[in-house]
């Protein structure tokens, strides 16, 4: 039990450190949020002005926006560590490697949630979708999706952080892996917005939660090997 508490403490310290660094710098956070907003705007251009079509596509566009912007965010939190040998320092901490992973994943979840807080209202405005009614379920979906995406994204950010071509490799590796997450999240969002007429919502949320658990365990179990390099 104490080791679990210690893990949580270390993870929190790492997440807090990254959050403070990000809030002091601001450019990265602001540019990622702006990027997400611009992506949603461009989806509108790509699909044309038909409001029906935009409303139908809204759940998919929301999650594509979250995934694309999320890639920038999780990559960023590892990139922070490449300067001044910070990554080596991090690996020298006498702590369980899993707690470093947990910390990086936690800040990833926080970033994803921040993106969600921006993008959900934006989707409601731009694509004329009524989100207020479905807000509790929508929030749960975003939370579950954020955890799964941060679990995968943090792991692959650890894989690619030392590569020259990490900007290309991170999306290339993450996107096929998160396909089930995207699928389940879009389905859950669609069901939530429609008032769940087919009673399929619990199944999709279960799939999301299952994905989260599997990927968190896989990430925590393997991330340590990457730091040993």
């Amino acid at each position, binding site marked *: 039990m104490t080791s679990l508490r210690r893990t949580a403490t270390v993870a929190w310290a790492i997440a807090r450190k990254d959050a403070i660094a990000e809030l002091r710098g601001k450019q990265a956070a602001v540019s990622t949020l702006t990027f997400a907003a611009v992506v949603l705007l461009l989806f509108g251009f790509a699909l044309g002005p038909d409001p029906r079509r935009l409303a139908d596509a809204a759940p998919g566009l929301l999650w594509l926006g979250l995934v694309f912007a999320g890639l920038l965010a999780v990559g960023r939190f590892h990139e922070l560590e490449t300067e001044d040998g910070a990554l080596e320092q991090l690996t020298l901490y006498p702590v369980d490697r899993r707690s470093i992973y947990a910390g990086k994943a936690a800040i990833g979840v926080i970033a994803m949630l921040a993106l969600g807080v921006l993008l959900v209202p934006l989707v409601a405005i731009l694509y004329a979708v009524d989100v207020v009614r479905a807000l509790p379920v929508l929030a749960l979906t975003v939370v579950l999706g954020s955890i799964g995406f941060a679990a995968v994204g943090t792991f692959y950010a650890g894989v690619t952080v030392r590569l020259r071509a990490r900007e290309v490799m991170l999306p290339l*590796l993450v996107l096929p892996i998160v396909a089930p997450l995207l699928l389940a999240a879009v389905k859950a969002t669609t069901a939530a917005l429609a008032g769940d007429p087919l009673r399929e919502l619990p199944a999709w949320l279960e799939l999301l939660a299952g994905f989260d658990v*599997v990927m968190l365990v*896989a990430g925590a179990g393997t991330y340590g090997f*990457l730091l040993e390099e």
Partner: protein
Amino acid sequence: MKTRILGITAVLAVVAATLYGLFGVPADLNQGDAQRIMYPHVSSAWLAYLSFGVTALAGIGWLIRRDLRFDAVAVASAEIGVLFTALAIWGGMMWGRPVWGVFWQWDDPRLTTTALLLALYVGYLLLRRLSDDPARRATRAAVVGLVAAIDIPIVHFSVIWWRSLHQPPTFLSPDKILHPSAPLPFVLALVGMLAAFTLAWTWLLIRRYQLARAELAREEAIRGGLVRRARSAPRPVAVGGDEGSVAQSKAPAEAAR
């Protein structure tokens, strides 16, 4: 020499199974000749999954034992796996066009899963290309191969849920693939092709493994500066041969230790 015999046997088996699948078996009642694509298609799909399973297990082997021979197996299996995955998708599309009317059927969970499989392992191979240090590359590849293997079943089941109207896998429902009056030749053709393809896979795996070992040895030799010295002093170099070529290129690496 043993590998060469295996290779010749595999080629002959594939040729025999192809001839039997094309001319020996009657055409399917509903699908006609298009159904014959199923023999190599199902075999390729099976080998794709086998390859990535082997890659994941070899990755675990490397993480535990820290022996680069495991990594050589992993890369060999992944590369051949990408080849057979591409073949499986190609065959699926060629079959889908006459039978379903489209190349790409989003309702089919296996086609969609296989496309993601291809993307996952092309990424795996690209990642390997970008890492120079053998141990580092092996570790990165091992964990990525492992997570990808964990993801495959989730992808598969999520796509099945997503498109609940799918038809069950043809391989497990013989009435769909087999001629109702003559099931035996169909089973024979499929099992024969599976066996032939698996033989060819084994041969390719051994050869690619040997090549991977040779590549590793060369990398080590370059690091030791031995290749440059060896080039300035011309020596006869063994060409071809079974295990000979590998042993030849392994020698400078061992001298470097």
